[in-house]
């Protein structure tokens, strides 16, 4: 060995006990312990102690998980009964939008449905993106579970659209109370920090419609209905780009039958 030997520290002895040293260091400690039997004895007893501790406390981790700790139940319970504060804020804005937009929830046909869908989505976008533009944290999470939850009435499994190819990373999802059931808000962001929101909720009247441009104030988007699910995609991007992104979402959804 050409490098000078690093002195053995107490920390090294514990790292040896926990088996986290690299090979060279491990060997160095081993030979040190052999030449210092008293310390060797102490370290050997730590090693035995570690094994005994693991055995003594092992049992609870080997038992089946009781129902009250079932994570899926906890998630579902929470979606139903524990809306987050910001969801309540979003709901208030959406209620205003729906009031202005008219009777989609009464079962009217598009384009009234598209108009309402767009307004809901735009209102949600305004709340989420402006409220969270200062940090990377997002209120959205567990997109697939949420979208599946929202769309459970449409009779097929629906997942959160994947826009990774277009450079948009999913930050998460949120459940939003809508006039008719629940809606999912999916929040994406690209490397430039541009936010994109996809809003999904069942359309009681059902059906499928082509993409439609929506224009709410300063921001553009697209909306469409796909086999009973209404979609709205909003981002601060040129309109042509929004159409491309919307087409991707549509095609992906058709491709995986969701």
């Amino acid at each position, binding site marked *: 060995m050409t490098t000078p030997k690093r002195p053995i520290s107490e920390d090294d002895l514990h790292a040896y006990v926990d088996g986290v040293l690299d090979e060279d260091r491990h060997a160095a400690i081993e030979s040190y312990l052999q030449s210092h039997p008293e310390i060797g004895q102490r370290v050997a007893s730590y090693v035995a102690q570690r094994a005994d501790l693991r055995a*003594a406390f092992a*049992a609870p981790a080997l038992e089946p998980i009781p129902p009250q700790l079932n994570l899926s139940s906890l998630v579902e319970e929470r979606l139903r009964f524990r809306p987050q504060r910001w969801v309540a804020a979003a709901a208030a804005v959406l209620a205003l939008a729906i009031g202005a937009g008219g009777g989609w929830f009464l079962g009217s046909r598009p384009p009234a449905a598209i108009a309402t869908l767009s307004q809901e989505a735009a209102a949600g976008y305004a709340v989420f993106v402006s409220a969270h533009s200062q940090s990377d944290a997002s209120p959205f999470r567990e997109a697939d579970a949420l979208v599946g939850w929202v769309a459970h009435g449409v009779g097929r499994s629906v997942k959160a659209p994947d826009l990774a190819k277009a450079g948009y990373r999913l930050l998460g999802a949120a459940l939003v109370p809508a006039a008719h059931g629940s809606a999912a808000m999916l929040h994406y962001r690209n490397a430039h920090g541009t936010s994109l929101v996809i809003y999904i909720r069942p359309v009681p009247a059902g059906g499928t419609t082509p993409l439609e441009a929506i224009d709410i104030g300063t921001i553009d988007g697209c909306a469409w209905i796909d086999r009973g699910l209404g979609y709205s995609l909003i981002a601060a991007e040129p309109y042509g780009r929004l159409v491309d992104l919307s087409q991707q979402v549509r095609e992906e959804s058709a491709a995986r039958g969701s």
Partner: protein
Amino acid sequence: MLSQIEACVPALRRYAAALLRNRQDADDLVHDCLVRALDKLHTRHEDGDVRAWLFSILHNLFISQRRRAASRPEHDPLDAAEGVAFHAASTQEDTLRWQELIRAVDRLPADQRTVILLVSVEDHTYAEAARVLGVPIGTVMSRLARARERLREMVSEPKNGHAESRRLRVVK
């Protein structure tokens, strides 16, 4: 993310049971930890290190629980066997040795107990344990060293029972 959380539940139960030494209380603590974690999901935008994140939530709940409990009168320490089921396959000799060890762990100061459980039983790295407990790694190392030595003295036969180790056995 949810599946990563789910994968940690057995370890959380083990750690909580070791800390509280009562299975019902332990599962209640894990339940609160999971609920808290779901509440805080939106503050996480990376999937990395879910385990340390969950353990730190559990740890903080444990600390505030202890603080509340401290205002109540001291209750009798649990029997070593209570709340701990040993492997069916273990010998009686093993079981006795483990019970003694558990009793000794119970007598460690809480700071040392959490460190030795996280490192020795839960296989956390020193950095992870430091994150869970919110202390520097150096503190983790010194608590670990003291915990191991103290346990060794409490559990080993008093053949090398010179004055110092006797003193340590009494001082809490």
